[in-house]
């Protein structure tokens, strides 16, 4: 269990959950995973499996990265946001279509879109960054 936690920390994960066998443990490095100030350089698993990530420098900025929670096709919601779009309140930015189900991606509150990482209709994997929002 401790090795799991160490691995999680060293891998830079913000949250993981083990619910196998007799254990059911949920570890988080921040109480609100969606709005955690985690910077992710992009889903670069294929292209640069060995590259060190740039989390240290980017983590200074108070920006939240919204990531895909499902594997599917991302569809940007209308009106489409872009870099610089200011949101007055929580709204749906996109949804991830997975096995015919629309899984909404919401801003979680007001803010300014500082990055859009995906294009409409793009396939996305779990944890893939979709948007960055500055509070």
């Amino acid at each position: 269990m401790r090795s799991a936690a160490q691995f999680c920390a060293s891998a830079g994960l913000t949250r993981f959950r083990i619910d196998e066998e007799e254990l059911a443990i949920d570890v988080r490095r921040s109480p609100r995973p969606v709005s955690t100030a985690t910077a992710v350089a992009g889903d670069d698993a294929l292209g640069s499996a060995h590259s060190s990530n740039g989390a240290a420098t980017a983590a200074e900025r108070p920006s939240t990265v919204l990531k895909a929670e499902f594997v599917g096709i991302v569809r940007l919601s209308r009106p489409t946001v872009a870099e610089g779009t200011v949101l007055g309140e929580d709204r749906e930015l996109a949804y991830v279509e997975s096995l015919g189900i629309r899984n909404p991606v919401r801003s979680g509150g007001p803010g300014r879109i500082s990055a859009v990482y995906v294009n409409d209709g793009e396939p996305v994997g779990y944890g893939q960054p979709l948007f960055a929002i500055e509070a």
Partner: protein
Amino acid sequence: MFQRLLIANRGEIAMRVNRAAHELGIETVAIYSEADRASLHVRDADRAFCVGPGPVARSYLNIPNIISAALISGADAIHPGYGFLAENARFAEICADHGLTFVGPAPETIASMGDKATAKAIMAAAKVPTTPGTDILDSVTDALVAANRLGYPVMLKATAGGGGKGMREVRTPGELEHAFATAQAEAEANFKDGRLYMEKLIERPRHVEVQVIGDRFGNVVHVGERDCSVQKPSHQKLVEEAPAPRLDAKTRARLHDVALSAARAVKYGSAGTLEFLVSGDDVYFMEMNTRIQVEHPVTEMLYGVDLVKEQIRVAAGEKLSFEQERLVPHGHAIECRINAEEASNHFAPAAGTLTDVALPGGFGVRVDSHAYAGLAIPPFYDSLLAKIVTHGASRIEAIDRMDAALGDTWIAGVNTTVGICRTIMRDDAFRHGGVGIDFLPSLMTAAATPT
């Protein structure tokens, strides 16, 4: 043939399937957990999707994300490897529901072979010898009656079990009540199914299994047996070899015949393995694994056939490419599992980062591994790092080749089973051949006892 195959697994078996697919001209789609981002199986594939965080329940067992990855990447088939979803009948059905070919047998076959009591009943009907035993036991009282009938020692087993979980050896009536309660609790916790049955305990048997492969036209062949008697105290295999040493020709032929009958009885249309306990001339069916197994390379080296390629071919609706008569074993093959484990500490999994990796190559040596220098071993998965397989003209040549190859295996950063495997290669009883499943536990006990 398939256009694009999603491989629903990780590590060496995902790489093994990826290679076979590429040789067949099939594009590959890997899946990976966040903990496996830097894994070689991800690099080797044409495309890869992260399907969840490290823990298996949320990634490699995450059926919706896996199916979705297959659909959005345009895959037409899914290979489950071994473990994870490989023997999950429901997953096989879901694949079919989404128009994806599951590379494995029919869901009903997986289901019936996955339930040990059902499997045993089917085999008994096909005149495959099974261990004397019982149906599901309703109570401890039932169990006491059954044990008296079978004669002690007996074994309590979980009907949904596997990997030694929910199993208890009972040598006297006095032990039965406690064993029943703990086995039931363990089965409930592990499989959400506390049902138990009982078998006569075959003492110090050998574990010998027969590889079969069939197509969807009713053709089925056996590809000989493997002896997997060198098992850890947890009953996990550590060293496998083929042919089974010191097995008389009649027993060997009987095993092959029985395995073929069994495979035909279930109209088996994929690669699979029938596991038997062998005690003297007696053979007892244990279970059928409806997947490719960890130790399949032993058979591949002995017979010179590519089982994974063939498994994919038959799943795609092709006929078996070889006939029984063309399958001829040559020499002897041995596999050692190199696990990230501390052998001297009950084979406890070892965590860490591989700082130095040099695996053996050369004549008569095959390696299947996802290890490389720099790999951080996630704590979520099984501890297999590499399979080293050697082939020799004789059994002793294969053993000496393995011993030399293990001497040229350099893995730093975690403890591994290289040392214990080397000890086994040099052990007189092992070299003589024909040891039982008690061999390695006894060896470990002897090693732990100061002389």
